[in-house]
């Protein structure tokens, strides 16, 4: 049985989530906009799912706009709050996902300025970042709640408060954080928050943008007027129902998940440190309990990855979206990690059902591969 340790890339669908979805693939097929009984049944299912997703992040159901995933939610947040006919400044964190950086960069064509907020060596935005808000007066600030590669968690409440103090809107990509740590939209001061179902044992192809009613948001998709005219398109009923079920499950087991994976991660990190020559990126920062991103000097991460895979272990280096590229991760470079070390990076991301055996198997395989690779390098040098 292969060992799967790449939960930040994709998570297996929980069987209970599948069970919740099946009736909406098999029997209840109505278009939620139809006035007849078939439509009313699926409309009711959507409403329930909306409540479940809202509950996960302590938002109101009316603040939930369903999308086709985290990428769309991020695009929506950034393009929906930056008007075409005026220009200004958008500030984004230095370690954002491409689905935040690319839409921001696309605004440059329309005359917008994009300010990148640097992180320190631990991967966090320093408190001094508030000065740049006061100086540049961005219309929108976007900083992810937790990073997909390193797991580093930002001080979102503080950043949101600073953004508000400078009359900026604050958006956070919470795709990796949701379902792993408690998120409180209401208390956080955040204006917009992106979520994705497939990062929390839900189906791919569905996500949400949580938005404060006070935010003026221009729709990205226009048409039949669904989601209160904010996001048109016939709703992915089965997917949304699955998202609701996944959110519900995540909320119920959040504390248990935190305790379990933290303990496993602890085990992993002590075993890694016993190996020697391993540096854990962002170790000094608060991180998601399931994520460890580390480098090993003198070893190529991609090669290590492929060898581990041949041994039946799935992990990753860099984010999934960028698996085709061979440049050092921009996230790690932003943390001032040397390019060679960054290229050796491996990310292990645990799931709620990962086991001690998974950890031990991984470490044993890693130790073996490191020994072999170092011997080979040694030979090449000598």
């Amino acid at each position, binding site marked *: 049985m292969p060992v799967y340790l*790449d939960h930040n*890339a994709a*998570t*297996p*669908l929980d*069987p209970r989530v*599948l069970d919740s*979805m*099946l009736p909406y*693939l*098999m*029997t209840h*097929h*109505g278009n939620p*906009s139809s006035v*007849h*009984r*078939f*439509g009313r049944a699926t409309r009711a299912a959507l409403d329930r799912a909306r409540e479940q997703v809202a509950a996960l992040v302590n938002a109101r159901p009316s603040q939930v706009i369903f999308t*086709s*995933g*985290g*990428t*769309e939610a*991020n*695009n929506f947040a950034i393009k929906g709050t930056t008007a*075409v*006919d005026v220009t200004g400044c958008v500030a984004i964190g230095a370690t954002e996902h*491409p*689905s935040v950086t*690319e*839409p921001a*960069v*696309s605004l440059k064509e329309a005359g917008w300025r994009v300010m990148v907020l640097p992180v320190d060596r631990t991967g966090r935005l320093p408190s001094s970042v508030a000065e740049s808000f006061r100086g540049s007066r961005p219309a929108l600030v976007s900083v992810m709640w937790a990073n997909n590669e390193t797991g580093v968690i930002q001080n979102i409440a503080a950043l949101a408060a600073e953004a508000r103090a400078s009359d900026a809107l604050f958006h956070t990509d919470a795709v990796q954080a949701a379902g792993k740590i408690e998120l409180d939209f209401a208390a956080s001061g955040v204006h917009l928050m992106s979520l994705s179902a*497939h990062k929390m044992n839900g*189906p*791919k*192809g*569905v996500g949400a943008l949580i938005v404060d009613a006070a935010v003026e948001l221009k729709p*990205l*998709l*226009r*048409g*039949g*007027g*669904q989601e209160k005219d904010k996001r*048109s*398109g*016939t*709703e*992915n009923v*089965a*997917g949304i129902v699955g998202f609701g079920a996944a959110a519900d499950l995540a909320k119920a087991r959040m504390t248990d998940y935190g305790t379990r994976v933290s303990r496993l991660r602890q085990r992993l990190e002590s075993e890694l440190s016993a190996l020697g020559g391993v540096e854990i990126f962002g170790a000094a920062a608060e991180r998601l309990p399931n994520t460890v991103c580390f480098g090993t000097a003198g070893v190529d991460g991609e090669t290590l990855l*492929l060898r581990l895979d041949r041994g039946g272990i*799935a992990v990753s280096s860099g*984010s*999934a*979206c*960028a*698996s085709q590229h061979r440049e050092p991760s921009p996230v790690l470079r932003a943390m001032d990690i040397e390019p060679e070390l960054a290229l050796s990076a491996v990310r292990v991301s645990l799931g709620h059902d990962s086991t001690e055996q998974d950890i031990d198997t991984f470490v044993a395989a890693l130790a073996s591969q490191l020994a072999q690779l170092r011997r080979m390098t040694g030979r090449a040098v000598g």
Partner: protein
Amino acid sequence: MKKPIYLDYSATTPVDPRVAEKMCKYLTLDGEFGNPASRSHPFGWHAEEAVEEARAQVAALIGADPKEIVWTSGATESDNLAIKGVANFYGKKGRHIVTCKTEHKAVLDTCRQLERDGYEVTYLDPEPNGLLDLEKLKSAIRPDTILVSVMHVNNEIGVIQDIAAIGTLTRERGVLFHTDAAQSAGKVPIDVNATNVDLMSLSAHKIYGPKGIGALYVRRKPRVRLEAQMHGGGHERGMRSGTLPTHQCVGMGEAFRLAKAEMGGEIGRIRMLRNRLLNALKGMPEVYVNGDLENRTAGNLNMSFNFVEGESLIMALKDIAVSSGSACTSASLEPSYVLRALGRNDELAHSSIRFTIGRFTTQEEIDYAAALVKEKVAKLRELSPLWEMHQEGVDLSKVQWAAH
């Protein structure tokens, strides 16, 4: 026979059990859940293989190359991507777009947004039968026109536009041609290379696939360029970023494969059922078919029942699930803009019912529906003072209604 009887296939279709079964394989725990963009392990590879097989199946239904298929979250997104994508990319070449008043809102509202952004849009009137007069289209095209968008089959009245002729015209004039084929794919044979279509929007849930997945056909020869509307990890050759939902792509692929295999036989059966319903109803006085009957998709029947109030009729017909106006706009009580564009007055537009027949419709259901409609229309007319006046020979258009 279970009630309500479903006769609203154009609003959405049930997922074919064969499609659902295939999708489940990619939703369960046997290792098929990997992210298709994860190149480094088999979990990712299997997912990628399945998605590419599905892409080829979608392409095959319309005679396209798999490389010309871009996955989206549905036809609404495909329409938005096609129109805004072309407008943004070719904006320096020209800023004029031509479309038709009977398009789906996903096309019309996207055009309205472009108008606010400084583009000019010409909205052509169809003929009373719903079809576009090609001479009118020809005259509407200007040197600064960059796009024509005309849907293949209309969702409300089912009429089929001559996209081959439109494509010939647009190619001659150097203008890109987009067609919303959400209602036609799998119901009417399509060959993109026989029709000079440059962009085509496709939907899964209109053809027994799941909701929340669609595609946009983007021609490569000659190459059509688009400005992406969803930016991010660079998926779909940079045209549409976002993790691909494997099970959804597989579902759409399977639905399209089945449609290609079964369309021939199915169309005949469905047309027979539709005609049976039509023949049962057309004998009633003061009923009108909306849209051309000849150039019409086999499963659509849209009729107006004069002197009957639309909402009351829908409520009286609660044993059959049908619609009046398109599903997307059923929340509002405005008369269908499509029927208004055909020249129908408000009353006839309001009293219209759209029946759409599909793969699982039986003759028994059709006969039941016909009997029910005849009964309820007669009953409602009995209660209608307007019907009484009409029967007495009063010309209602000449009556001076007093306000009070």
